[in-house]
């Protein structure tokens, strides 16, 4: 069955960039006539702040509206914590870097639900009385289920602001876990899996573009071999300068096909280093250096900055102060 769009074929490609409005249908001419979008109307491009000014500066203001961002990293590098921060940030008004919107968090399973609620409620949100009212949580146990959830979320995008803030942020944590169980390793299944990557990415990007929303997914990493193993698709040396975490060369999971699906790729890494050496030469203290790197993005160059994870959130470090 060929993939078909949700929207009727007569929808024009002229979409209003105002986050609160529903896209206008172009009055029918005798044939389908798309209207180009004037670039002046797309400036300034709305962005979702990361909740910390230094981290947002790394992304020239934050995550751009209308795009799909991937946050990849080893376990315990702070991906989920950063996602929770984004969920709260989206509630803020645009003048404070938010989207004045509700958000949807999709997880592979809701089992760690109580700890999730605890973490959410612990995060400070001084400007909003009841943030948990506007954060929706759902679980997707397979890629098909995920697609179904995304189609169901369409009606949440259309909500009028007077009833409740419309949905403007979708976070999938993590996309690798949702895809992992479903497909075996034979060739036919691999092709089907690649097709699903593009379907999921296309649906998220379409919703982001039509409604002025932000889509975020988190991803795991896999180890890669060094460049000596040339010709092996497992190594990602053709993707440019290597990514390091805990002293190992790694690459985001789900391969080259998935890499083609995202607009922005952020990589979180951690490296345990010896901070001081004692009098007798033994190591005195170990500290974890955490780094957030923008691997590629449509609006900023490749750059990185260090950050820390505290009780009240994820915050970037200014290099000068160190």
């Amino acid at each position, binding site marked *: *069955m*060929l*993939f*078909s*769009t949700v*929207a009727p*074929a007569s929808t024009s*490609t002229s*979409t209003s960039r105002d986050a609160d409005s529903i896209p206008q249908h172009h009055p029918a001419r005798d*044939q*389908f*006539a*798309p209207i*180009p*979008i*004037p*670039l*002046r109307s*797309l*400036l*300034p*491009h709305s962005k979702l702040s990361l909740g910390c000014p230094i981290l947002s500066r790394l992304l020239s203001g934050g995550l*751009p509206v*209308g*795009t*799909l961002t991937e946050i990849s990293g080893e376990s315990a590098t702070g991906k989920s914590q950063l996602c929770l921060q984004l969920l709260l940030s989206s509630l803020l008004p645009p003048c404070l870097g938010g989207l004045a919107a509700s958000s949807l968090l999709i997880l592979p399973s809701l089992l760690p639900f109580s700890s999730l609620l605890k973490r959410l409620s612990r995060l400070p949100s001084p400007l909003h009385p009841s943030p948990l009212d506007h954060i929706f949580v759902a679980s997707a146990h397979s890629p098909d289920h995920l697609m179904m959830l995304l189609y169901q979320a369409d009606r949440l995008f259309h909500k009028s602001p007077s009833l409740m803030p419309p949905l403007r942020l979708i976070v999938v944590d993590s996309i690798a876990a949702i895809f992992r169980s479903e497909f075996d390793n034979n060739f036919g299944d691999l*092709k*089907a899996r*690649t*097709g*699903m990557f*593009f*379907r999921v990415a*296309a649906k998220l*990007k*379409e919703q*982001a*573009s*039509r409604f002025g929303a932000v889509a975020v997914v988190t991803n795991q990493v896999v180890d890669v071999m060094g460049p000596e193993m040339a*010709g*092996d*698709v497992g190594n990602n*040396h*053709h*993707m*440019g*300068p290597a990514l390091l975490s805990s002293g190992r060369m790694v690459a985001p999971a789900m391969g*080259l*096909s998935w*890499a*083609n699906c*995202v*607009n922005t*790729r952020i990589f979180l890494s951690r490296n345990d280093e010896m901070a001081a050496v004692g009098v007798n030469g033994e190591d005195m203290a170990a500290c974890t250096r955490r780094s957030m790197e923008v*691997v*590629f993005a*449509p*609006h900023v*160059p*490749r750059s990185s900055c260090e950050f820390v994870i505290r009780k009240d959130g994820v915050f970037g470090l200014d290099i000068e102060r160190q």
Partner: protein
Amino acid sequence: MEISNLPISPSIRSKLLSKGYTSLSSLSSISPSFLAQELSVKLEEAVEVLRAVSDTTTSKSAHIPYGIIPGAVTAWDMLSEEQMQRHISTGCEDLDAILGGGIHCKEVTEVGGVPGIGKTQLGIQLAVNVQIPVEYGGLGGKAVYIDTEGSFMAERAYQIAEGCIYDILDKFPSNSREFLSCKERLQVNNFLAGIFYFRICSYTEQIAVINYLENFLTEHGDVKLVIIDSVTFHFRQDFDDLAQRTRVLGGLSLRLMKLSKMFNLAVVLLNQVTTKFTDGSFQLTLALGDSWSHSCTNRIILHWNGNERCAYIEKSPSVPSASAPYLVTGKGIRGINSNFKRARIM
């Protein structure tokens, strides 16, 4: 008077003359709808008039053997026309050099590479560079940018347009009289207004926009570049019938090639990469399969060479295969020998 020699009906001819259109050059840059309004005729008749004008201007001398095959042109005429063609600069002198001047008009060029290598950046750079006025060595045309992936950011286009204008004013002396008039056109807002941006969210929309392009390009005769970024994205969603996908893609590429020849513009298609198992190992190759690889006139592959970005010409009818390094800077695509004064290296 040249109008009197045009093969058009006498009533239309008298209307043209009474409105003041006495020479062929006065009709050279008018859109059909404007002419239809001026002369109070139907749109199809205005299109006929303009077609007659362009036919007359291309057949220079009387001894072309039209009687044998209508529309035939001698190879000598084609060569002199080709040599007069301007090319669209990519921003990087080395890359322009190996391309034989830049991206060619009347041809379809495919550019592919891994994510993050700079495909969209090159696309935006070309959409800006095509608008460089003729007096500064550009084409003075406009661009159509069809975005299927959402990677086009207007603020990045703003930065690149700023960088382009800055470099032009740096290179050319600003006080000579003939440049003063077109200096006013060197505004970032003009460059942004010269990019017709379409956002496509499905493969049906993609097919529809490409079908609509012929009408659009007839209306906007000054478009000299059509970019599709990327042509692949919506076609990798697991079509059950691969043969149909091949047919649809073949139809698209034929239509784009026809548009490029008909309107004398360059078509640039950005493509993704995938891995193919050949000769016992996995190699990087452009997506959409083997039959698609025959659809484009030129092919450029962008790849990493260690920590450096490189462009490799894989297929071209006019220049040999060669490779050139390039940079993606804050001002856009530049060569490695460019002035580093204000560049932020990516």
